[in-house]
């Protein structure tokens, strides 16, 4: 058996491990256009911040590939997939044949799509290469502008501030994290970022990047010009689906997958930021481009490449981060309340940057946001994943003493879900 994995990040690596759980000997090839062994993409924040060195952000030991008998091809771009010949077309090398293919090609930073964007000094915030360039440019200038008030933008702003740069975050919409949290939580984080020395301006976007070759400044859409040599683009990501555009593999927001993470073509799977999966909360197809989801999808896809019998329960939007010592989490439905939804809040103290909000739809927990109150948060996540009926514990849900023993009888034990053994010796199954 010959397994081919396009992508050498969370999904790709976990796919290797998934395959090796069931097939110790099949040939595995991993191709990546990056030139590094697998690293923790999310830790580029820490790398930029200066709290982690490059060699300390490796996701697996250096001998991972050798131990797992993987042929690793770095610095090679996959141009396309020929599903009839069962081979992938490379930019430099000869086409590579496969029996089973996993597309885990990830995503790219969304561009600003404005004039002058190609100038040196404009970077995304996604790859180690981005990080190295940002650090280099940052050394020459003491100031950076970040476009985008989502998590990527904020992480970039945090990393740069930690490094000692003056940071200005520009948000086109009226507030931070407009797609991640509600206005109340956003206001707390806004205040916290400002308290920690990051400038934030809302309702403004860029119109043109100024300079000759190198960035010299930005022209804003209100006509204002600001002088800056380092621009970070944190406008979200776009799945790298171009490699399948000339193939019968179907795409929508990303590459469409079924419950086994297989694409519409037998033997071709997709996982990670490139894959569109069913969102457990909305029930619709989404690209939940998250490290956690990529790991899980990669592992399951890998196992299914060997023996297609492991169902993927679906993805869930789930983020957690720590900014200047303030922990923040947002899982599932986390925006403003719409009809059919309701919210529960605990003893919140925005002055103390402390916040907890639970979103319900009927008798189901569908989302939560916490700031500075993170312990036991996973219990909420479990309730969301298990689509548990929470009517009996509604009142205590947002309380600080809420924890696993309060829900131990509510978590259904569904076949096929992940197994754990409770302290009372029961098998617990959570999606």
């Amino acid at each position, binding site marked *: 058996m010959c397994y081919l994995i396009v992508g050498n990040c969370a999904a790709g690596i976990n796919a290797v491990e998934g395959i090796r759980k069931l097939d110790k000997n099949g040939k595995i090839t991993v191709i990546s256009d990056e030139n590094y062994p697998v690293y923790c993409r999310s830790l580029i924040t820490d790398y930029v911040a200066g709290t982690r060195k490059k060699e300390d952000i490796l996701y697996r030991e250096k001998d991972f590939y050798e131990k797992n008998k993987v042929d690793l091809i770095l610095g090679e771009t996959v141009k396309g997939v020929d599903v009839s010949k069962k081979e992938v077309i490379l930019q430099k090398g000869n086409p590579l044949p496969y029996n089973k293919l996993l597309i885990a090609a990830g995503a790219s930073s969304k561009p600003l799509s404005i004039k002058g964007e190609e100038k040196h000094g404009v970077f995304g915030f996604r790859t180690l290469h981005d990080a190295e360039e940002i650090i280099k440019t940052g050394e020459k200038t003491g100031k950076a502008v970040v476009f985008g008030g989502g998590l990527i933008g904020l992480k970039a702003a945090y990393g740069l501030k930690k490094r000692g740069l003056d940071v200005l975050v520009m948000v086109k919409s009226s507030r931070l994290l407009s797609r991640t949290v509600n206005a109340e939580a956003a206001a707390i984080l806004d205040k916290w970022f400002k308290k920690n020395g990051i400038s934030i301006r809302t309702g403004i976007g860029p119109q043109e990047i100024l300079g000759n070759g190198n960035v010299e400044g930005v022209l804003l859409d209100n006509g204002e010009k600001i002088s800056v040599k380092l621009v970070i683009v944190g406008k979200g990501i776009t799945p790298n689906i171009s490699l399948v555009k000339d193939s019968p593999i179907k795409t929508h927001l990303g590459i469409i997958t079924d419950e086994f993470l297989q694409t519409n073509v037998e033997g071709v799977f997709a996982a990670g930021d490139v894959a569109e999966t069913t969102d457990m909360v909305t029930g619709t197809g989404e690209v939940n481009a998250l*490290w*956690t989801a990529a790991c899980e999808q990669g592992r399951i896809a890998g196992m299914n490449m060997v023996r297609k019998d492991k169902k993927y329960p679906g993805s869930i939007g789930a983020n957690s*981060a720590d900014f200047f010592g303030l*922990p923040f989490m947002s*899982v599932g439905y986390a925006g403003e309340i719409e009809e059919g939804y309701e919210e529960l809040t605990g003893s919140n103290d925005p002055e103390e940057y402390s916040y907890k909000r639970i979103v319900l739809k009927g008798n189901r927990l569908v989302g939560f946001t916490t700031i500075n109150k993170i312990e036991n948060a996973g*219990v909420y996540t479990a309730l969301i994943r298990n689509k548990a009926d929470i009517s009996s514990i509604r009142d205590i849900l947002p309380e600080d003493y809420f924890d696993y*023993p309060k829900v131990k009888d509510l978590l259904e034990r569904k076949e096929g879900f992940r*197994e754990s053994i409770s302290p009372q010796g029961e098998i617990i199954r959570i999606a």
Partner: protein
Amino acid sequence: MKRVFVNLDKCLGCNGCMIACAVEQSSAGDLFKAISEMPLPVSRIEVKTVDEGGSFPLQCRHCEEPYCIDACIAGAIRKDPETGLVLSDEEKCVGCWMCVMTCPFGVIRVSLLPDKKGKIAVKCDLCQDRKIPACVEACHTGALLFCEVEQFISLVSKSKGDRDVLLNSR
């Protein structure tokens, strides 16, 4: 694999397991010194409450397919292929709390770093260096047991006759 189980009928909520765990996790390994360590050692077991004030000691379940491992963006949490233990390399932890966000049991806890400049996630390692985990050894009533799940089930059923003890008899 052997895990820590609890016979809830025997737990008196004394918190002895919690103290024993914190002492085990301290640098000094001695109660009197541990209570003044900076930072304070964090117990990996917590005695929670259930209805009617019953107590429920809880620590990492060392899941078959742990959510925390998928969630760990730093690759710090790994499953030991030989022992099945879910272990965290605290040096690697960056304190992103993804594991806390996904652990269905809520047993991953937050500890200050020695320099107090940051926090990391900490969890039960089933006292790898000991024959019996400190919490189990400390349990005066025998509520905590360290054994295979089958063994636990047969022990508890024996102690309760034909009552269905496994499905939350409390």
